[in-house]
């Protein structure tokens, strides 16, 4: 049977969300001949639709449905209704991402074993390791066309990168380069080479950056096995008396409640919406929500230990010219507790346009201390910190029954407190970032607080033992065999690396597993 599929067709795999996890999974399954209905809450925007204007693009792409926040993180004060900066559109946050595509380090799959007991942290080893993931990483790098892998050349260095590189070399850093990026350095896979236009966060108008929106999604649709329903907001996952999931209820583009039957349901709505959906699907049989016998659904929310360092020089940099993320220092990504914390961090260049710099450099600040910094905008260079943060059971996504969304569904409250390890790591990274820029003559530096989260991880984590997490090593719910989690919420720990490559590798691997199990009649 070919797409479009009937609401009563209970042979389809329903995938909720079409980003790095769901979008890739949908295409991979469709390529294997599996019938897939993908339900996407947002609309469809393609390169010709993307807007190279920060606020206007934010209005077009960002997930702006209501959410609430609590905890000691500054985001809860400065952006109380916007805990995350992620996308509501076909392709999900792969429209917005900067393209950094780096593998986990071997020890990061085994955080508990490597770091030992860290007070207050709910550390756990992944039930998979680097050897298991190596072939899937290779497939992911090939799919995304990652530079500096598979014989693909690196991107050229921009002004922002050159400042960063010179400072890093002056400090003696060795692993300094223009990154392994899912941005074409030469034409690849029917996508053109990067034109150094900037606005990577607003969607690549050239299609030089990989996004599921214009690669995996249309290719899956071309097989006839994938139907993507846009503006379809899933409210609830349904199950039968045996505890197997049977379909999903969703509000269609007209706000009408529909029910799609399913053989298998895969949840890929990012680390807020995925646990929200499981919790909102509570029933008399599963009063604490689906797949939640461990009580871990929504817990262990991780967002990476982030922050930025901007610096002003006495001469122009014009950091906005070229890719938003243009290079990396990897020397600090190692695990070296002598620095006063476990785990490590990456430093990656970043630039914001003037409108977002005004909003994010020091939210809430005013007066000349703030405005004199912006007066130096043209002479500014910038970098972002991405470090491993500690999973904590109390960092948690819960349902806020006091606040309802446009469909009358309880929204999520996102609670986050920094762990002392996170604070120690961020302060170390601020010092090193400042030192990099001072080494090349910065006259003023700005250790900038974390933005609303773009890396949202861990709220349905993977575990060997069903007691410790929500899904097994395939992303399959411990409690419900035909329910899968396919996004970054299945991360056991966050590692120091940008998560998209790992989400894609896990999705390719999960598609292989699901198709194989379906073929055996096990699912």
């Amino acid at each position, binding site marked *: 049977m070919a797409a479009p599929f009937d609401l009563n067709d209970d042979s389809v795999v329903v995938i909720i969300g079409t980003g790095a996890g769901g979008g890739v999974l949908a295409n991979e399954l469709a390529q294997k001949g599996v019938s897939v209905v993908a339900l996407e809450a947002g609309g469809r925007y393609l390169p010709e639709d993307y807007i*190279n*204007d*920060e*606020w206007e693009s934010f209005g077009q792409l960002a997930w702006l449905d209501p959410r609430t926040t609590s905890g000691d993180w500054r985001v809860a004060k400065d952006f109380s209704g916007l805990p995350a900066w992620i996308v509501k559109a076909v392709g999900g946050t792969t429209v917005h991402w900067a393209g950094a595509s780096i593998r986990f380090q071997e020890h990061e799959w085994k955080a508990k074993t490597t770091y030992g007991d860290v007070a207050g942290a709910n550390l756990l080893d992944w039930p998979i390791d680097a050897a298991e993931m190596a072939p899937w990483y290779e497939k992911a790098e090939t799919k995304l066309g990652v530079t500096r892998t598979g014989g693909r050349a690196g991107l*050229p*260095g*921009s*002004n922002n990168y*050159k*400042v960063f590189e*010179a400072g890093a070399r002056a400090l003696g850093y060795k692993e300094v380069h223009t990154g392994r990026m899912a941005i074409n350095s030469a034409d690849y896979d029917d996508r053109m080479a*990067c*034109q*150094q*236009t*900037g*606005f990577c966060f607003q969607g690549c*108008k*050239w299609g030089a950056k990989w996004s599921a929106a214009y690669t995996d999604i249309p290719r899956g649709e071309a097989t006839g096995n994938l139907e993507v329903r846009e503006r379809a907001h899933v409210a609830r996952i349904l199950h039968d008396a045996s505890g197997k999931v049977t379909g999903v209820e969703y509000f269609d583009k007209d706000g009408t409640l529909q029910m799609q039957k399913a053989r298998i349901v895969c949840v890929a709505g990012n680390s807020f919406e995925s646990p929200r959906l499981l919790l909102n699907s509570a029933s008399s049989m599963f009063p604490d929500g689906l797949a939640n016998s461990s009580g871990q659904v929504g817990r262990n929310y991780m967002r990476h230990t982030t922050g930025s360092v901007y610096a002003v020089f006495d*001469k*122009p*940099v*014009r950091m*906005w*010219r*070229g890719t938003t993320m243009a290079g990396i220092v990897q020397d600090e990504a190692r695990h070296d507790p002598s620095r006063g914390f476990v785990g490590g961090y990456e430093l990656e260049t970043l630039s914001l*346009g*003037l*409108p977002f*710099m*005004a*909003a994010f450099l020091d939210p*809430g600040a*005013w*007066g*000349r201390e*703030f*405005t004199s910094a*912006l*007066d130096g*905008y*043209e002479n500014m260079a910038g970098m972002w910190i991405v470090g491993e943060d500690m999973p904590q059971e109390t960092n948690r996504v819960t349902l806020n029954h006091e606040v309802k969304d446009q469909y009358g569904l309880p929204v999520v409250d996102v609670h986050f407190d920094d762990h002392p390890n996170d604070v120690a790591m961020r302060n170390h990274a601020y010092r090193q970032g400042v030192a990099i820029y001072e080494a*090349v003559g910065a006259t003023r530096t700005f250790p900038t607080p974390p933005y609303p989260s773009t890396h949202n991880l861990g709220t349905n984590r993977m575990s060997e033992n069903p007691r410790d997490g929500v899904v097994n090593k395939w992303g399959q719910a411990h409690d419900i065999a035909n329910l899968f989690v396919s996004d970054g919420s299945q991360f056991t720990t966050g590692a120091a690396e940008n998560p998209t490559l790992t989400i894609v590798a896990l999705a390719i691997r999960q598609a292989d597993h699901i198709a194989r199990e379906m073929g055996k009649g096990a699912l």
Partner: protein
Amino acid sequence: MSQHQSPRGLTRRELLKSGVAAGAAFVVGSGFVLHSREAWAMETKALAPATMATLIQMARDIYPHDRVPDQYYAIAVKGYDTSEAAPAIEAGVAALDAAAQGMGHASYLATPWERDRVDILRSMEGGPFFQTIRGGLVTGLYNNKEVWPIFGYEGESYSEGGYINRGFDDISWL
């Protein structure tokens, strides 16, 4: 830009004669604010002209950029000149003037030193009036494309083919 035009067909000279000097740069008259140095005027509909002049000065004092003319601060706060917004703004500016008087000045606008005006603002920065004005300026001022060139920011480059051949790597001072 409507505020470049003289209201009601008056010449600038006539406006200057009909208005009352307020602060260093503003002349307020009946239904208009005139900027004597930058040679523009804006009509006000719902707000008292003196209130609008105060608001423009407050905007500059919150985000002072010496290379940005008052005109852009005026554009950033112009949206408050509506019948819905006016009561809260009038009350906020009255509180601002009261705070100025509490510190020995005639009014906020008549406080000559920025340092003193900033002290007045600090006394109010926790309140909703200050936070509304400040929050609105983050986009009202910095998202105005006419302001960007003053900061050197070039905005979108897709229409010109990006920077691949236009200086993405042209830094020469390293």
